[in-house]
């Protein structure tokens, strides 16, 4: 018994792919329009990195250009066996973990507040966005003066007399505080986007099923925001790892608060050790690439949302 859903009897010859003039013109226009942006990106970003990779293989002090010498990977060896590097690495790691965790929790709270309609929502949203728009350096100064021993009000309010920037952990505390304050808005907006896409019906169904607020959050809302959460965490982790402005302004990196970025800056600009500084820049770059790799490949973060065409 033959069936209706039969394929066509005669086989068709495989058509040679040929583009109409219109499709070809579209292609050309597409390349033409996107080329400048991509070219500039490569020029201003890729080129310096390649340059840094090249320079990192040299022993090169800017103030003594004559003694520039090719030393293969010796710079890397020096760096990776240096305590200062690893100390700064640990500091950066600490700051990254702490700030991302805090920002995620607080950012989620902000997002949940922003997601509800209520009188004055516009005002609350403006307030939340202000830290994002403020210059990081300004924020750093603001927090620094607040905690400073001689001008700040924190000691007065807490009734203490602590030299916040004198000790490693207290200084790190203020730095993290400032960083969290400054960048939470950004992560809260990313989470808000994810939150807004969770259909109300899911939460309503859970409500009818008798779930408490906490249960609803963990069992319904967060699981459905997974994609947005992972993207937000990726962006923030990469940003936190590169931290520079806040610690530089607050402590200049002293008292064990130096981060990897500051170290690279000090080597290149401060000590004009171009070779060494370049090597550090490359290591920093590679560590960022590693973070991306971990998130995208191992944790399967889908940045496709962003790059989908």
């Amino acid at each position: 018994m033959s069936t209706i859903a039969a394929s066509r009897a005669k086989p068709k010859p495989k058509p040679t792919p040929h583009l109409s003039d219109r499709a070809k013109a579209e292609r050309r226009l597409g390349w033409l329009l996107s080329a400048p942006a991509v070219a500039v990106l490569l020029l201003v970003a890729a080129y310096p990195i390649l340059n840094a990779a090249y320079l990192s293989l040299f022993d090169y002090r800017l103030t003594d250009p004559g003694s520039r010498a090719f030393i293969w990977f010796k710079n890397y060896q020096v760096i990776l066996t240096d305590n200062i590097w690893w100390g700064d690495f640990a500091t950066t790691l600490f700051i990254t973990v702490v700030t991302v965790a805090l920002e995620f929790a607080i950012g989620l709270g902000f997002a949940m507040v922003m997601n509800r309609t209520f009188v004055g929502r516009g005002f609350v949203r403006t307030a939340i966005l202000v830290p994002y728009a403020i210059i990081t350096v300004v924020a750093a100064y603001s927090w620094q003066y607040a905690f400073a021993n001689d001008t700040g009000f924190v000691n007065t309010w807490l009734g203490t007399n602590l030299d916040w920037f004198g000790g490693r952990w207290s200084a790190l505390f203020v730095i993290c505080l400032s960083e969290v304050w400054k960048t939470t808005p950004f992560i809260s907006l990313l989470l808000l986007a994810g939150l807004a896409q969770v259909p109300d019906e899911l939460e309503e169904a859970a409500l009818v099923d008798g779930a408490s607020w906490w249960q609803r959050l963990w069992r319904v809302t967060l699981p459905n925001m997974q994609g947005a959460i992972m993207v937000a965490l990726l962006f923030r982790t990469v940003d936190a790892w590169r931290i520079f402005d806040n610690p530089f302004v607050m402590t200049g990196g002293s008292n064990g608060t130096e981060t990897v970025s500051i170290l690279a800056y000090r080597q290149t600009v401060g000590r004009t050790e171009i070779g060494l500084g370049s090597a550090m820049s490359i290591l920093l770059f590679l560590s960022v690439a590693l973070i991306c790799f971990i998130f995208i490949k191992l944790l399967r973060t889908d940045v496709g949302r962003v790059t989908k065409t």
Partner: protein
Amino acid sequence: MRTSKRARIWLGVAAIAVVVWALMPVVWIVSLSFKHGDDIDNKQFWPTQWSWDNYKTVFGTDLFTSALRNSLGISLIATTVSVVLAMFAAYAVARLDFPGKRWVLVSALAVSMFPAISIATPLFNLWREIGLYDTWAGLVIPYLALTLPLSMWTLTSFFRQIPRDLEQAAQVDGATTWQAFRRILVPLAAPGVFTTAILAFFIAWNDFVFGITLTSTDKARPVPAALAFFSGASEFQQPTAAIAAASVVVTIPVVVLVMLFQRRIVAGLTGGAVKG
């Protein structure tokens, strides 16, 4: 979803807490800027006496006014270039079909991940060699690495939201490509371009790393970098007050922008996922 009375109270409390948390440091620095002379050391939140002294100082110094000029000029140029380049690329990605389309946005994303210091350090050397050190151009160029990625991402998502049907309908109605672009696409894309420009400006305005690495005098030094080199009205005074006043001055425009365009900014950063 209907919020119960209890939930609304919690929401109100949370909203107030959020606003206080968000604005406190801003209010603090404003308060600092109005403290004059030795009042700085009063260790209180508010000044005992309000005074405009610091603002007079700040506007009197060349350092600040030239830094302001530098920041404004460099940021505007970088924003304009970014937005124009990003607009072309975004139109291509959102509307046209060509091989390698995906790589355009991927490369933007990748560049946004580069550490600024990793770009600044080689440029420190390079710019000195070719004479771009301590110049406006020397900053505008690396700023593009900061502003282009976000501009491309934001504009692409704005363009995608304009239904393709509209341009096709215009074509069927008899419009040339140029007519369709001018009468349909431009008016609809304008808000998106405007929002992107605001976001790009924020990023350029905010830069610190390139500012301190690639400049050495007030010829090109932007405000954030200049703040780090501030000194007070006299040699014996801490620059705290002056810095506070300068900070307030550079913060006012961004706060005003946020107040006026809060909705657009949220739309831009969330790719339009969040309505109103």
